[in-house]
C-alpha cells in the first residue's frame, strides 16, 4: 500500500479530482456501452417474438376469413 490512510488514498496526493474523474468517466463509459448492448439484446429478442406473434395473428385472421 502506497498510502498511509484511506483519506490519503482518496486525496491522491492532491490530484484527487483528475484521477477520480478519469477513472469515473472511464468505467462509466464502459458500463454504459455494456448495459446499452444488453438492453438492446433484450429489445431485439422481444421484437422477434412480437413479430412472430403478429404474423401468427395475421395467419389466424386469414384462416378465419377463409372459413366464413
Amino acid at each position: 500500500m502506497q498510502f498511509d490512510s484511506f483519506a490519503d488514498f482518496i486525496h491522491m496526493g492532491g490530484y484527487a479530482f483528475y484521477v477520480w474523474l478519469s477513472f469515473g468517466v472511464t468505467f462509466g463509459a464502459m458500463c454504459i456501452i455494456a448495459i446499452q448492448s444488453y438492453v438492446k439484446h433484450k429489445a431485439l429478442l422481444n421484437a422477434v417474438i412480437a413479430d412472430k406473434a403478429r404474423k401468427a395473428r395475421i395467419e389466424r385472421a386469414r384462416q378465419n376469413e377463409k372459413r366464413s
Partner: protein
Amino acid sequence: MWKWLHPYAKTERAYQLCITLQPWLWVGAILCLSIGTVWGLAFAPQDYQQGDSFRIIYIHVPSAILSMSTYVAMAIAALVGMVWQWRTAYMTMIAMAPIGAALTFIALFTGAAWGKPMWGAWWVWDARLTSELILLFLYIGVIALYGAFEDKQQAGKAAGVMALVGVVNIPIIHYSVEWWNTLHQGATISKFDNPSIAPEMLWPLLINLLGFAFFIGAVTTIRLRNEIVLREQHRPWVQALAEQALLPHKTRER
C-alpha cells in the same frame, strides 16, 4: 489451414460461439480490471515527477493502445469479409465500431484530465492526443456510413471499405501528426516518454491492458449477437432462441 474457421461464417455457429465465450470474457475482464485498477491506484509506487496524477496511465494507455488495435481488428474483419464473402465478418466489424469509439473517447478524456495538472490546460495539441482525435473521426465516419444505408448487407460492405481506407491511413496520420507536432512545438516534455518504467508500475498496466482487451471481447460478443438477431430475425432458429430466452420469464410472471 484456416478450414476450422469456416463453419463460423454461419450466423448460427457464430452465435453459439459468442454464447460460449461470453462468460469467460466477462470473468477475465472483471478480474483483470479490478486487480489492475486496485493495484495501480493503491499499491503501485508514485511517479517521482508526476506524483499520483500518473495513475491515470492505468486507464489512459490501455484504452489508447486498444482503440487503435480495435480499428485494426475491424479492418481485418472487413478484409476477411471481402475475401471469403462472410456476412458474420462484416457483422463483427460493425459490432466492434462503437466499442472502439468509446475507447477512443476514454483515451481522449483521460488524456485531457491528465493534461490539465501536467500542462495546465485541458487540451493541448499534443501529437498523440491529436492522432487519437483523428482516430475518433475515423470511427465516426465508419459508424455514420453504416447507419446511412437501409440495406445492412450493403452497409457492412461499404463500412468495410472505409475501415480499410482508414487503416491504410492510420500509420500515415500517426507519423504526419507526430512530425507536425515536432515542427510546431519544439521540444516539450512528453508526459508519455518513460524510457524505462519500473516493473512494479508496469505490471498493473499490463493487467489492465489485458482486462480492457477482455472487456472489448465481451462487449463485441453481445453486440455481434445483436447484429445477428437483427439481420436474421425471420429465421426459425432466431425465433426459437428468442422464445427460449424470454418466454420462461413471462410464464412465471403470469
